[in-house]
């Protein structure tokens, strides 16, 4: 079986969870009896050997590069050496045309596309080749816009594609509900396949944490609360800062470490100062590698305050790096993770209450993590790959859905 996988990013060129989920899923699937050709909108060496990776370039383009930030513009280097920058919407259209050209010369059995940016390309292939398309939803527009309506152009693409898909995969029940609510896709055409994590992929920490200052503060009785993610409306950080203010009033020796970048960066900086907790909040900007891992590790508690999180890998990563998590009920990961603290994203008092409890009680922190870590060790992408293989097979034999 030959799978045409349409995706937007892969690590290490990923801006967040989407690229990592695609990578892990394909890695698990590659152990099955199938081959994967993964088509990306940019060219780069990912060091991946378990599948073929193709860059879908429009005609006359020598290379396409991207920065690490989601929804940033893309740099096109044309064959004559000139450069051009495209926004995400134009890029999405070019990708569609490039994929259409690609399938003119190559045969596939099934198309598996990840999120709206690749959905039009998938529809094109279906139109040209009449092969089944599986659309995998990692987030919908209402998630990304913090439960608001979002961009109507994006909604239009999502609606059209999801209704035309042979099968829709949602990364959580939370996401499945959103797809039904926003686009009226029938429940029995959407299958929930939860994301997961590979415990074996956790990179061992080296003994010198990059946040030396925070380590020193901790030795003085301070405690550290960490958030890692894009600083965008979906992630609920203003509520987190309001809770932080209440925590600092109760437990002044608490530092909040916020790792990430995004359009709310300056707003959050100013907000921390307005709330009178500027001295207790550290912003580090976007980090990768050791500094990213060490941010998880330095924490006494990881908080994911998301307003709407289709899945939410970060709390699982935090647990892997030794830190228990507080998450919102409005997340997909809350459907599979038991040993963690859970609040509603709007319940700032409760968020503050639970954070205060952990930073003032090391025993609670340690028990919470020990139990979460046991859960974490039982996770893998294998179950997800079984479920997806079944979906492929059903559609290949032409069985009724």
């Amino acid at each position, binding site marked *: 079986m030959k799978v045409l996988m349409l995706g937007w990013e892969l690590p290490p060129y990923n801006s967040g969870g989407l690229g990592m989920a695609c990578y892990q899923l394909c890695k698990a699937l590659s152990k099955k009896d199938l081959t994967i050709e993964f088509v990306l909108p940019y060219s780069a060496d990912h060091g991946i050997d378990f599948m073929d990776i193709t860059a879908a370039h429009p005609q006359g383009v020598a290379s396409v590069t991207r920065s690490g930030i989601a929804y940033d513009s893309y740099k096109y280097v044309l064959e004559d050496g000139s450069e051009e920058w495209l926004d995400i919407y134009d890029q999405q259209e070019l990708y569609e045309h490039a994929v259409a050209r690609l399938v003119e010369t190559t045969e596939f059995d099934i198309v598996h596309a990840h999120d709206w940016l690749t959905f039009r390309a998938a529809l094109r292939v279906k139109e040209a080749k009449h092969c089944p398309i599986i659309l995998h939803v990692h987030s919908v527009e209402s998630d990304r816009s913090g439960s608001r309506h979002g961009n109507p152009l994006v909604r239009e693409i999502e609606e059209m594609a999801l209704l035309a898909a042979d099968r829709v995969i949602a990364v959580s029940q939370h996401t499945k509900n959103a797809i039904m609510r926003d686009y009226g896709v029938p429940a029995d055409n959407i299958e929930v396949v939860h994301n997961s994590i590979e415990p074996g992929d956790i990179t061992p920490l080296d003994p010198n944490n*990059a*946040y*030396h*200052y925070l*380590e*020193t*503060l901790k030795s*003085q009785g301070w405690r550290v609360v960490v958030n890692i993610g894009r600083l965008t409306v979906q992630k609920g950080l203003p509520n987190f800062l309001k809770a932080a203010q209440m925590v600092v009033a109760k437990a002044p020796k608490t530092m909040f*470490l916020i790792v990430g970048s995004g359009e709310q*960066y*300056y707003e959050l*900086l*100013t907000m921390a*100062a*307005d709330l*009178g907790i*500027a*001295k207790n909040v*550290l*912003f*580090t*900007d976007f980090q990768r590698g050791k*500094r990213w891992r060490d941010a998880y590790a330095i924490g006494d508690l990881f908080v994911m305050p998301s307003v709407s999180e289709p899945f939410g890998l970060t709390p699982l990563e935090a647990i892997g790096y030794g830190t228990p998590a507080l998450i919102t009920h409005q997340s997909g990961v809350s459907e599979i993770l038991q040993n963690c603290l859970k609040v509603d994203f709007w319940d700032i008092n409760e968020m503050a209450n639970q954070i205060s409890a952990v930073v003032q009680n090391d025993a609670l922190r340690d028990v919470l993590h020990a139990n979460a870590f046991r859960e974490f060790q039982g996770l893998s992408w294998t179950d997800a790959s079984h479920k997806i293989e079944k979906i492929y097979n059903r559609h290949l034999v032409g069985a009724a859905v």
Partner: protein
Amino acid sequence: MSKAIVLYLHVHQPYRIRHYTVFDSGIDHNYFDAAYDSQTSNERILKKVAEKSYLPTNARLLELLRTNPQFKLSLSITGTVIEQLERWAPKALDSFKELCATGRVEIVAETYHHSLAFFYSRAEFEMQVEMHKRKVQAVFGQTPQVFRNTELAYNNDVAHWADKAGYKGVLAEGWDPILNWRSPNYVYRPTYTDNIRLLMKNYKLSDDIAFRFGDQNWSEWPLTADKFSHWLSEDKNATNFNLFMDYETFGEHQWSESGIFDFLSHLPVEWLKTAGNTFMTVSEAIDNFEPVDQVDVPNTITWADTERDLSAWLGNALQASSIQALYDLQADVIKTGDLALIDDWRRLQTSDHFYYMCTKYFNDGDIHAYFSPYDTPYEAYINFMNAYHDLKFRLIEHGVTV
């Protein structure tokens, strides 16, 4: 009766904070030495300003002092710029010494670190004024008689303090809401004081030179020494025209190509053509003219922005909280006796750090942006706070509980 131009130039360079991240806090205590080619390199900026402004301006000032016995001026020169000149542009420092050696250049008192300590810690403020006095005595061989607070930040308390400290005069902005119908072109007396006198900047005339000189859209462009002298002569009763501005106006804010140096060279010649016209240092103006009225300034005024208050430095929450956090460390920092730590703490007090965090006109890309080595006010704030956290780390190493 004589009529004097009181030219007063302010010389200052801060120690700009380099790109300093949370990963430096607790590891690298060097906040101020950036790579030479970086935007925040103090060495590179100091050398550039010395080349473009200090050396050519001082050459012309020295020439004027030699050829015009009546030409005089006053300078305020901060401790932080003197240190940097000693380190990176000793020739420029020598040229300032040469000016002073003529005996017709008066140095004005201020805080060593160009700080707003007056509003946060009187003890620290007095220490910095004393440090500055000693530095001026050592480098220029004179003792300041007239006081200016950082950014010309002034209120009745500043006057009261300077009076008690024995200064004969203090400088302030000649802001209309304070003066009302009165003119800045006289000597005044601050309310609630005994002996001290107040000189107020004529901001219209000063800004004609400092801000508008090179603006080709300005209706008075091009400004000539002849025209400017004529404007002054129109005020028949004035005694002293207080032209206060940044020294870097010459060659840095107004580039050489604008003709600013020619203007500087010609102004004294034009002005002194009329009998009775002269130049005075700030002390001489105070000694020669009786105060015409008293001036009451209950709220702080400065020489910045259309608001003329401290909002350019303390107006937003980032600024207000970071400066307060810094001064909250005072007792612990001083107690350590660690001179390097104390010095770094003082360098972080320089008002420029807070000016860079100003968001008032961030979107307009105005004058604040022009003077900032950072791309955004937020970047300035983050660097500052990371350095602040490193100060705390160093306190922990001294056994202080933070």
